[in-house]
């Protein structure tokens, strides 16, 4: 404003003396500089509206404090973006990774990532210090260790970012929500263990326990309106290190019991199928013997009926003929010895050597 006033004064020059001319030129050039500076300032203000978003973060534009865009559109991804200058728009950056994952903080004994990787455990004392070692109580009042890893995704960024904080004042991140999910997991482990028996958690119903924990976490997350959805919950449970061996012995004993029973069952199958086969063969043999008997009697009866007329015509002759007919057949397989008759009619002595055929030697016939 004051520049303008100074400029207006030398505007109507009456005399074109060298001094006033020089002053006018100087003023004109300084005005140009000021004008240029003002334009530059405006340009800078607008150019400053450009900002980039990295891969490991998202940005939200707050216009007069209110997030722009609804749902997932609120989150600006990696790339170049533009916003109005500060008093109108404010850009907040939120560190956000692709995978949202938390692990419960209670329920597991004190260990380090190095020990986890090496698969070793810290030495077990006779008792558990509640300040250091985590554990849960089961329904049958056993102590076990358990932990849950929860994967989730952000459903409603407005809720997740602007409704929860981890205490870091006025900064924006997802720490508040991940903290809440973590406590939901802790709570789920305690409450679910409280209604499961130790053997169900450790061996008999591992999947059921995991599923119950997942349901509990999902329910809490929904009730607490965290704006996230639980994708997966993995639960790992172990017996206390102090009792590891005896727990292992129980499972071995139980496996042995199963083995004994399985063996007995296969023996049962064997015994029953053998008995079944034997029973079938007994009845089959009886059936076929009976059938054979009946048919042979019937065949004999038929033959008898056919022969009866011939026999009745001359019984004696018939019998002689039949016997003579049968003789060659009967004698075909027989070793024959003849005893010549003595003229004096005395009996002949016959000696048999009985060592040739082991089975049933026949005694000597009459002379």
């Amino acid at each position, binding site marked *: 404003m004051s520049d303008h006033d100074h400029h207006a004064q030398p505007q109507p020059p009456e005399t074109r003396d060298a001094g006033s001319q020089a002053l006018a030129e100087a003023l004109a050039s300084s005005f140009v500089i000021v*004008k240029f500076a003002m334009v530059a*300032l405006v340009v800078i203000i607008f150019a400053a509206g450009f900002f980039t978003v990295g891969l490991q973060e998202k940005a939200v534009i707050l216009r007069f404090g209110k997030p722009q865009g609804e749902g997932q559109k609120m989150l600006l991804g990696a790339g170049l973006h533009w916003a109005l200058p500060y008093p109108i728009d404010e850009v907040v950056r939120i560190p956000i990774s692709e995978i949202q994952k938390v692990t419960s903080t209670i329920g597991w004994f004190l260990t380090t990532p190095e020990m986890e990787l090496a698969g070793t455990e810290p030495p077990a004392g006779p008792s558990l210090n509640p300040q250091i070692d985590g554990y849960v109580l089961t329904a049958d009042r056993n102590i076990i260790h358990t932990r849950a890893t929860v994967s989730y995704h952000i459903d409603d960024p407005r809720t997740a970012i602007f409704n929860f904080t981890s205490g870091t004042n006025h900064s924006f991140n997802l720490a508040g929500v991940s903290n809440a999910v973590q406590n939901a997991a802790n709570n789920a482990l305690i409450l679910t263990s409280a209604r499961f028996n130790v053997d169900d958690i450790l061996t008999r119903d591992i999947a059921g326990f995991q599923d119950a924990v997942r349901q509990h976490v999902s329910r809490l997350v929904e009730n607490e309106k965290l704006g996230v959805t639980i994708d997966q919950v993995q639960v790992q449970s172990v017996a206390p290190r102090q*009792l590891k061996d005896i727990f292992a012995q129980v499972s071995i004993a139980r496996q042995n019991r199963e083995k004994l029973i399985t063996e*007995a069952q296969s023996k049962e199958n064997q*015994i029953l199928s053998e008995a079944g086969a034997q029973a079938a063969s007994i009845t089959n043999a009886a059936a076929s013997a009976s059938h054979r008997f009946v048919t042979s009697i019937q065949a004999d009866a038929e033959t008898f009926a056919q022969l009866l007329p011939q026999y009745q015509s001359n019984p004696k002759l018939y019998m002689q003929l039949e016997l003579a007919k049968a003789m060659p057949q009967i004698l075909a397989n027989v070793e*024959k010895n003849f005893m010549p008759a003595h003229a004096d009619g005395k009996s002949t002595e016959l000696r048999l050597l009985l060592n040739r055929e082991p089975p049933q030697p026949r005694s000597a016939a009459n002379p």
Partner: protein
Amino acid sequence: MNKKKNLITILIAAVLVVIFALLLFTFQVRQSEVAVLTTFGKPAASNLDQPSLYFKWPWPIQQVYRFDQRVQNFEDKFSENYTADNTVLLTSVYVGWRISDAKEFFPKFAGGSVAAAQRQLEAMLRSAKAAVIAKHKLADFVNSDPAQLKFTAIEEEIKTAVQTELASHNYGISIDFLGVKKLGLPESVTQTVFDRMKSERTKYISEAQFNGEAAATKIRSAAERQAADLIANAQAAATRIEGAGVAEAAKTLGVFQQNPELAVFQLQLEALKTSMNQKTTLVFDERMTPFNLFQNWSATPSTK
């Protein structure tokens, strides 16, 4: 030319003035915030909890106090309490709380200090927990029967107790959720629990051994009995089948009665045929038919 130049200059200057005035006379409340406007130190009647642009007189007339209205997480210390059946139980709870009424909140805690508020919250939780846990037995905390498990109800009772306390003092704080974060037993008790668990396990081991053998023996003996039954039944069936066969055959016996002599002859002949089928040595008298034919045919004795 000069006039146009002046116009641009005035415009740019005006923009700058507007921006400056905006900074001086307005303020923003962000989505996550709640603000209280004070006029000469006196708070306004309402909280500014919606994100927007608000007007104010510049300092020192009016002043803005901002608070985070997001849900804060607070966890109390792992502390011991007695249950109704005199068990010592260690519990720690997490609380999701937030400033629900900033104009009430900030005069009560020095400068609206969150830490001061949480100290107050911790004291309330301590007494609420002690009161609620003392009303319940251990069986209400751990129980395999869902009907007797009262864990969720216990959490609800603690929450209600703290909420009532907060409301009666009008702290401007509300509790969104509360849950047990950690549950434990005193260190010395864990050792006795381990001893009990150990003896339980030992019992299970002998049970499993005994049960396994008993069950296996039971299965085997049942199978053997069943097998014996099967064979006995089969033998009975066989006897019945044979009996039926004999009865069937008896129907044809009438045929043979027409001439028993022939029947007997036939049977004898048949018996002879079958009995001579095997390797047999017979010694005959020459006078026996049909070999008596030889005697009349030749005087030479046959010695074979």
